[in-house]
């Protein structure tokens, strides 16, 4: 046995089915063995960054299935490995388990600036959970298993394995033995507390029973631990409304009467106002990111905070907690829901107050969505997403890119399927959607997957249409083309006096692009074309690209300006300003 074979044996044992990547000089031996072994489906991305997002798609989408898998991507040394960085940093920000294997130049020439050499471990260290560089074939199997353990245990994250070419080819020693059954990772500094301690839990229950204006926060940890159902019964039992972080969406049905929708910068009025007036925040698996809190010293000033979080370094990081529960969201909810001390209060006044908040923007939004057209007669993204939501009954999987359309998709799709929303959140990587949707579709083949991008993000990774074509991935690709980087343009409208610097952009003829890849294409310019195009995409077997011509002046409201507090929330659309950008 050689190093490369041990690597693949370990990946196979860990249930890996797909390998995404791009070969090259320093990883060739491993690719050769993949081919010989024939147990993995190899999916070639057209750029290494694409491979990282495909692998992320696998990890994110499969964790709620019976067969959770960790996404694996592979690249060669130097430029190959460097092209992985964005996707790895993205996985780290969003706590997505991921294994990245990179080839490295042979140990004899390491640190001599050899051809395609770069210090992968040095570069990756600050942007991933752990890095490994095995220096003997005998170490490889143990290292891979430890890497999987680290990537998936506690708060998940990406792990990088940088394997020198000569180690890939090295034979193991004669007396080499490894047994997975007896394998225990040797990590004396790795602590993992999945079970909630009794004392803080009792304090939490006391606070919950006593409070008058509570809000439950549903974060990524709820999705990650498959605790959506439990969270829903906790909310129903206590009659407490639930606000979602970007990554908490789809943990429970979006139209549930207790749902307040998304919180934070582009969150709903009801979520943000409720948080402002709350006397207790009960947060599960989230990290009080700046997009969620706004100005920290004005954040939820009158509220006690219960913070359930698996990563102890997140507790008290941004928001001071009253009760900290360092544990897994699922286990905590499981104990909470079953605890006889937990009581339910109707809290009629609080729910009536929330109904008032719900009405603040409801009429405006309804009017906008029903109108469906912007000032220049082009389509509104809100309307497209709402129609998609209706026509699919909110049951499909949505993989947005990053920007305005992402917020529209977060706000106006009526999520019904648990774990059906996958987005680049913390890092906000444009171009993530198309490759991530490919990974999602591979592990959820029976569900319909919509990749929604803006014209900016789509052009960042549209080379992955090559992968869609080659592997006949059945993706429904939507491009919301408004000729601008919409989100930045919105900020320019609101805070930069309408000077559109660096945001207008030309798109290629997407029809020609689609036909070059042999993918059907429809351009949608009028309201009456939306439904038939979506219907066609639903009925069609195989990929399709739908380009929607959208209004560049559409804004997503409410919005809390960056660095602002919840009181600064903008709920009314400002008067349209003169056009500043050139087309």
């Amino acid at each position, binding site marked *: 046995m050689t190093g490369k074979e041990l690597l693949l044996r370990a990946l196979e044992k860990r249930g890996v089915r797909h390998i995404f990547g791009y070969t090259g000089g320093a990883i060739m031996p491993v690719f050769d063995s993949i081919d010989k072994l024939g147990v993995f489906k190899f999916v070639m991305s057209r750029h290494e960054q694409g491979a990282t997002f495909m692998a992320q798609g696998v990890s994110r989408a499969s964790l709620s299935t019976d067969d959770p898998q960790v996404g694996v991507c592979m690249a060669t040394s130097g430029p190959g490995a460097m092209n992985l960085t964005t996707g790895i940093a993205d996985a780290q920000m969003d706590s997505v388990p991921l294994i990245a294997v990179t080839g490295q130049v042979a140990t004899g020439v390491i640190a001599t600036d050899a051809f395609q050499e770069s210090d992968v*471990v*040095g570069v990756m*260290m*600050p942007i991933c959970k*752990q*890095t490994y560089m095995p220096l003997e074939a005998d170490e490889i199997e143990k290292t891979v298993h430890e890497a999987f353990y*680290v990537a998936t245990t506690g708060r998940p994250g990406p792990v990088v394995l940088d394997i020198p070419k000569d180690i890939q080819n090295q034979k193991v020693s004669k007396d080499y033995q490894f047994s997975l059954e007896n394998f225990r990772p040797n*990590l*004396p*500094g*790795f*602590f993992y507390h999945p079970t909630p301690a009794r004392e803080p839990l009792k304090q939490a229950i006391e606070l919950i029973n006593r409070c008058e204006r509570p809000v439950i926060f549903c974060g990524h940890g709820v999705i990650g631990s498959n605790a959506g159902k439990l969270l829903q019964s906790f909310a129903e039992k206590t009659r407490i409304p639930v606000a979602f972080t970007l990554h908490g969406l789809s943990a429970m049905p979006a139209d549930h009467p207790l749902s307040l929708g998304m919180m934070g910068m582009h969150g709903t009025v009801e979520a943000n106002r409720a948080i402002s007036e709350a006397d207790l925040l009960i947060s599960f698996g989230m990290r009080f990111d700046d997009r969620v809190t706004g100005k920290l010293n004005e954040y939820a000033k009158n509220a006690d905070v219960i913070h359930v979080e698996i*990563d*102890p*370094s997140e*507790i*008290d*990081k941004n928001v001071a907690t009253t009760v900290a529960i360092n544990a897994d969201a699922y286990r905590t909810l499981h104990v909470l829901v079953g605890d006889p001390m937990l009581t339910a209060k109707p809290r009629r006044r609080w729910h009536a107050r929330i109904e008032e908040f719900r009405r603040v923007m409801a009429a405006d939004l309804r009017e906008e969505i029903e109108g469906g057209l912007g000032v220049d007669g082009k389509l509104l993204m809100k309307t497209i997403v709402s129609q998609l939501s209706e026509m699919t009954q909110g049951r499909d999987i949505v993989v947005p890119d990053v920007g305005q359309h992402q917020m529209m998709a977060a706000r106006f799709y009526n999520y019904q399927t648990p774990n059906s929303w996958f987005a680049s959140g913390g890092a906000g990587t444009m171009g993530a959607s198309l490759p991530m949707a490919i990974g999602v579709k591979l592990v959820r083949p029976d569900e319909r997957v919509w990749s929604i991008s803006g014209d900016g993000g789509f052009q960042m990774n549209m080379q992955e249409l090559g992968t869609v074509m080659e592997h006949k991935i059945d993706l429904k690709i939507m491009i919301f083309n408004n000729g601008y980087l919409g989100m930045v343009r919105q900020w320019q409208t609101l805070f930069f006096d309408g000077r559109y610097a660096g945001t207008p952009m030309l798109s290629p003829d997407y029809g020609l692009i689609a036909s070059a890849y042999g993918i059907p294409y429809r351009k949608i310019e009028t309201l009456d074309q939306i439904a038939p195009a979506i219907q066609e995409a639903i009925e069609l077997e195989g990929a399709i690209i739908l380009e929607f011509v959208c209004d560049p002046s559409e804004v997503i409201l409410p919005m809390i300006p960056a660095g602002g507090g919840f009181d600064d929330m903008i709920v009314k659309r400002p008067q349209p300003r003169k056009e500043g950008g050139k087309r």
Partner: protein
Amino acid sequence: MRRRAILAYLLDSPGVLQKVSMLIRKKMYNVDTLTVCKSRKPGISRMTITLREDDEARVRQVIHQLEKFTEVISAKELDTEHSYWREAAIIKLEIDGAQLDALRGDYNFEILEHKNHDTHIIHIAGSTRRIDAFIAQLGEEHIVEISRTGVAALEK
């Protein structure tokens, strides 16, 4: 700003020092002093880091994030009231022998080498403040070269 000492026990493996220093940089501190030595347990190092910070919560953050590294077994703050902080210095001096002898009453140092009539190499250990005072009393102009170890700290 207040000087803080953080004690960490960590695996003695390549790259750990880089991780620790990278975290401190990321949190926008400049390392004041950093000392590493073997602990009594094989394979585990003991590190003392000092940096300047008034905000207690931010120091706790650094400690939590240090502990997040799988290589860091435990980390805690050592405050001056409950721990000893000491450092050592080796100093090459150009000074009159009698002048040096005059300091003996106040400071405990060892003459490692007496090269010619007025060049000495001495060793002194004590708290940072004590060594600073010694240098001040000696007079900077007499110092040819100085090597200080940085702080080693131990809980009472």
